[in-house]
């Protein structure tokens, strides 16, 4: 089976999601990577993880990847190199590219997957629904290329020790009317401490904090525990913190050693993003809150009273 992995890079290295997909792809067949960008700095790593070749568009010239990368992939396929399966990371870029490509190829997309199995020519993928309580396995109909996206941390990362991937130019070409969006400026938000989806400890806050100003206690607590602060969708929607803090179905998936949920009731939307944590501590006023159903330690009480005491105790150590 010919398997492609849609690769992404950040700060000069393949993203962890890319390495996860490459690791899994090796067990499914022959692996080729595709990158919307310049692959020269990462071809060695892509090769170590099993890609023998990487198609690379080079600089996108301010185009958004959705249109540009899907156009380049379509051109490769029309040119005669067609994969059976393309694995995408469930990221902003991955989602946009696979969506545009699905229309160009008239093929379905299956997103939010956590597993894949190949049996002969049948490809099955598994998606969690209802907050991760139910797993739905679907198989693709008809011929490939099959397009599937995977949630971060679905697969372990292991190098295979191969040589550098061969870089093959995949020019974007003419985009026409759909290519009208242009990136005018790029803003990188400064953050200190570990990344939310890589931190060993995550402290997330929700509505139970009472008001936006109290979110600073979550940040203080996260810092004391050398962790990252996160948030429920409710307080992101309310504008207390940016979308990038959101943990859950529509936000980041986290699997830290310890997840501390403060004033979060545990809507299914939230649970699907943190259920994979090794241990979970929850503080919530409502003892019936669903979060207590999955917590290793649950404190039924007022987060606004408990958190300051916790901070004081930790500062005193």
């Amino acid at each position, binding site marked *: 089976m010919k398997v492609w992995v849609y690769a992404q890079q950040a700060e000069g290295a393949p993203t962890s999601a890319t390495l996860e997909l490459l690791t899994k792809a090796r067990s499914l067949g022959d692996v080729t990577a595709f990158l919307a960008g310049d692959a020269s700095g990462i071809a060695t790593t892509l090769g170590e993880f099993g890609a023998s070749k990487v198609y690379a568009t080079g600089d996108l010239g301010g185009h958004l990847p959705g249109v540009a990368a899907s156009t380049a992939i379509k051109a490769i396929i029309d040119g005669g190199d067609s994969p059976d399966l393309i694995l995408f990371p469930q990221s902003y870029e991955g989602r946009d590219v696979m969506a545009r490509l699905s229309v160009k190829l008239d093929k379905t997309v299956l997103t939010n997957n956590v597993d894949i199995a190949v049996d002969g020519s049948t490809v099955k993928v598994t998606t969690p629904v209802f907050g991760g309580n139910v797993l739905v396995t679907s198989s693709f109909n008809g011929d490939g290329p099959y397009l599937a996206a995977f949630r971060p941390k679905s697969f372990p990362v292991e190098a295979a020790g191969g040589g550098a991937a061969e870089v093959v130019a995949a020019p974007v070409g003419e985009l026409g009317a759909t290519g009208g969006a242009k990136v005018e400026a790029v803003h990188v938000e400064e953050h200190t401490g570990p990344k939310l989806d890589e931190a060993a400890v995550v402290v997330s806050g929700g509505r139970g904090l009472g008001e936006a100003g109290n979110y600073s206690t979550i940040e203080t607590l996260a810092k004391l525990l050398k962790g990252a602060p996160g948030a429920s969708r409710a307080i992101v929607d309310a504008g207390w913190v940016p979308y990038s803090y959101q943990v859950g179905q529509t936000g980041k998936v986290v699997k830290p050693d310890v997840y501390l949920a403060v004033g979060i009731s545990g809507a299914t939307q939230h649970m699907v993003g943190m259920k994979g944590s090794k241990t979970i501590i929850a503080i919530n006023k409502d003892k019936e809150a669903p979060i207590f*159903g999955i917590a290793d330690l649950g404190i039924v009480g007022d987060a606004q009273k408990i958190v300051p005491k916790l901070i004081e105790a930790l500062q005193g150590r």
Partner: protein
Amino acid sequence: MNVIVCVKQIPDPALPGALDPSTKTLKRDGKLILDESDSYGVEMALQLVGKAGGGEVSLVSMAPNGETSGMRTALAMGAARGVLVSDPALQGTDALTTAKILAAAVQKLGGADLIIAATESSDGYTGTVPEQLAEVLGLPSITFAKSVDVDGTTLKVNRQTEAGFDEVTCTLPALVSVTAGVVEPRYPSFKGIMAAKSKPVDTVTAADLGVSPVGWAGAGQEIVEIGQAAARQAGEIVEDDGEGYAKIVAFLESKKVI
């Protein structure tokens, strides 16, 4: 400026969801409400049309059972009219076919200067329909908008990225997908709710729009298994007596976090 907003009517997310074992689709037989994710797009559309000083906001939606209560909420907020594609045959329709159907509904309304959608629905959350819709319509798009402005015929968006955000511009017509919290959705007024009852919602079938096949027949996948995920067991749950914090400290110590 005319804006079309894609709205989804979903089962109340506060109620436990269930799969229908016979059709293997999400049960949607109860009352459907406006997906909260879409209320941001409706609000954004109303604000942009207001700022432009003319035009109207229209809705497109797709539901298997003729339900319009969620669309009425958006009409009560101020949208002028809608097209609902409703057809029992739609059950099991995948994201790609959904995009084709919504594109046909958009064209039935005569197109628009701007099409707005949420980044994903709260129930199915495939998360690709807006970008697929743009491709079917041959439009440029800016996804994951955290702020949206229109200056003449130029769309200006701050687009969420992994690292921060990008400033992106595009000439209209175009499609934009908006993240939750991009604006504060208004509550429908009593007057709005009353007016919404008489606003036109044109209900059509997929066949009326000339889209086929739809439903499971048109889907590129089939569900082969539905299983239960390994359940997490609840641990120790204690009432805070003023010393609850100490339990957490001890727990963190036992996990060697501190």
